[in-house]
């Protein structure tokens, strides 16, 4: 397990790895809420994801860089 997790921790950080371990170790069958969460994540297209990243970085949607990215990801 750790061999698989080490590259993930190195690439994406500890919080994500922790969440994945929690999921793997829980052993409980996925609930409808779990599927809804997965589906909600999978329904995010590139534009939605770019908007989320722009917001996370504290950039304004009218910022030239932000507008360039939005145009490119479409």
């Amino acid at each position, binding site marked *: 397990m750790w061999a698989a997790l*080490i590259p993930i921790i190195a690439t994406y950080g500890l919080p994500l790895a922790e969440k994945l371990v929690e999921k793997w170790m829980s052993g409980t069958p996925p609930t409808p809420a779990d599927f809804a969460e997965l589906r909600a994540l999978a329904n995010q297209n590139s534009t939605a994801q*770019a908007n989320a990243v722009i917001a996370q970085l504290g950039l304004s949607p009218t910022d030239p860089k932000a507008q360039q990215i939005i145009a490119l990801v479409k």
Partner: protein
Amino acid sequence: MIETSTLFTCLFLVLAILLACKSVLVVWLLKERVPDLVRKWRIRHHRSFLIVFLLLGFLATGMTCNQNQQTATFNTLYSLEKSTVAAYDGYLAAVLAGQARTNEVPKISHAFNDFQAAMVLAADTDQAGTNALAPPALVAQSADLLNLITVAKGAK
């Protein structure tokens, strides 16, 4: 008596550690000794990364073999989704910060959208209780996308 599943998990573990060590060693050797071949290393490194990533899928499935198939598949799909979204977010943040070029953004975004569409289908199939494994094509799609992102980030 060691169970077969434990034996396979250990085997995957050793293989994954060896591949990770090989990647680190190749990076060091080429960067230190043969800088001209760094580009060539990237190709090798990506191949190793792809294998490690595929092993992750097998491990996730193997570790959860005492659970039912739906749970195992869900955990694999969830891990793939989280890793891929995190990589794409990181790439966009790098582009916005000027640390990666914009040239590959349309191609990577197209690949991301394809992956997401395939993930919705896979989640629907899993929830329907078909006891299907995580589609290998989806795992490969995710690995390809991560490779594209790694190359695009390194090209600056």
